[in-house]
């Protein structure tokens, strides 16, 4: 039954293959286009007689050289990294104890608060950015990356609490009770037993936080204007366009460089991220 028609082309098999092929091309082509653009010589790029899908001339590293040495790209990368590290630190500090409290210590209330936390990640930046721009100015953080370090945990903390709650609930209660009988305090159980046992959950939070920091656009655009203090997501589309001139080769190189590492990390942790979004509709 199971192997019937496995090596025979069937209409359904063809349909299946066609759907996969069409979607892979639709979703993946822009990245092929970025790749080939970033290595094309400028003459090749703007010659309408050339077949645009292939390299007609020798590949060039000129666009990448320009990107790394004549723009602030490296600075934007570093800014993004620094903000990422700080936001990860703040997120873990706030979310780990909060998630444990909701999972174990607050009973019926914990579940209600958990749902409340879940609902806060439905409140979008585009609703908060106007008042927050005032708050950031009052704190004297305008035009610095510290504005983002303060604000970004607002979307990473709720999601991380929700994710970690799931991890903590999966730890057998008996294990924690036994550790308490052996003399650990409740907080000791959390710090010495639960946290080390949840390393994969913590790693998921770290990766997810980094991804969100790299992807964020609205807050960085609103709070920061100087070129050298910018983040990757705003710096690249804003400052690699000078007047009417788009540095397409360098722009596409920058897009790829920012995307590929995140893509690998995201793929490794995909199933865990998804569990944070399914609202219990999948068990």
């Amino acid at each position, binding site marked *: 039954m199971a192997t019937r028609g496995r090596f025979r082309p069937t209409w359904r098999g063809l349909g299946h293959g066609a759907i996969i092929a069409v979607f892979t091309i639709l979703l993946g082509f822009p*990245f092929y286009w970025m790749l080939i653009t970033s290595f094309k010589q400028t003459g090749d790029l703007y010659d309408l007689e050339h077949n645009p899908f292939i390299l007609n001339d020798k590949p060039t590293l000129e666009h990448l050289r320009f990107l790394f040495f004549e723009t602030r790209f490296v600075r934007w990368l570093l800014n993004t990294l620094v903000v990422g590290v700080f936001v990860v630190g703040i997120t873990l500090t706030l979310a780990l104890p909060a998630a444990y409290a909701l999972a174990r210590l607050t009973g019926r209330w914990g579940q209600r608060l958990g749902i409340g936390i879940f609902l806060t990640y439905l409140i979008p930046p585009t609703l908060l950015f*106007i008042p927050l721009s005032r708050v950031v100015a009052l704190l004297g953080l305008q035009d610095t990356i510290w504005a983002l370090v303060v604000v970004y945990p607002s979307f990473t903390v709720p999601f991380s609490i929700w994710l970690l709650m799931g991890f903590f609930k999966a730890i057998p209660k008996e294990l924690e009770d036994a550790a308490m009988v052996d003399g650990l305090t409740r907080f000791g159980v959390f710090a010495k037993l639960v946290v080390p046992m949840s390393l994969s959950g913590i790693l998921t939070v770290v990766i997810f936080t980094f991804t969100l920091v790299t992807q964020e656009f609205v807050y960085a655009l609103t709070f920061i204007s100087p070129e050298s203090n910018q983040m990757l997501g705003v710096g690249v589309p804003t400052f690699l366009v000078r007047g009417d001139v788009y540095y397409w080769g360098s722009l596409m190189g920058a897009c790829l460089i920012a995307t590929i590492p995140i893509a690998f990390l995201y793929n490794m942790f995909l199933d865990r991220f998804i569990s944070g979004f399914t609202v219990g*509709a*999948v068990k």
Partner: protein
Amino acid sequence: MTTGVERAAVKGQDRGYLLGAAMFAPAALYILLIIGVPFAMAFMYAFSDVTVGSEGMSFVGFDNFASILESPTFRKSLENSIIFTLASQALVLVGSTMLALALNKPFRGRKLVRFVLLLPWVAPISLGAIGWKWMLDSLYSVINWVLIHLHLVKEFDPPMWLGEPKLAMLSVILVHSWRLLPFSTVIILAGLTAIPKDIPEAAEVDGAGFWRTLFEITIPMMRPILNVALLFGIIFTFTDMTVVYVLTAGGPFDSTQVLPSYAFTTGILSGDLAQGAAVSLFLVPLLAAVAYGMLRVAARSEVV
């Protein structure tokens, strides 16, 4: 021994609440300060005359709402936001259901395909959008190159994807759907693995046929997860301004302006915080509806 465990557990319960509150408080305080307070401020601003430069502010009642409701740009933005959300959600829901059903069967190279399919979602939104801006370029668009070589459009009059109002709106919708499709697909895929495979199979063996099984058995069983994908999709679409901002900046002639991008233009670029806040408040009714929907889903799956 057992009594010891029980006693420890009971003692833990008593002190648990206090410790729980202490452990939850820092996160709660932060969320209150950075989400709760600005959320309240957004309402306050919308009824005031605050601007970027102003020191204090006075309350002006519904003046801001009265003036934005009269603005043609606002009405266009509201209309565009609704079209943008409906059209891209329809595309994404149909596309991701098809794709998830196809991916649910094992085949060779599935891991690689999954990697490629996820790229639009993991790429920073603004950078994915700038990639499309290059593909939709007025002179060097690769899409136009193909269309010209297939003789579908005239060489000297190719479509200006981002330069003509209707085409620009279409482009914005397509690019946003492109980005959201992978997210929706993986959510639906996660839901599919929870559906017992033998029910649709049994239906087909009983002669229900492929399409009837799909529409009368498989899709109804997918309902809860489709709801989740749709609710998140609505939030990510209705409140997003990145794709619009990068591709068209709301133009040409405000033809692709949506509520969030209009709020940004008014509130931040022109510095009229009060009007900008008033515009962004029009996001709230839909957000409330989505929150209600999420609670229903959560209640039905007994999370609450």
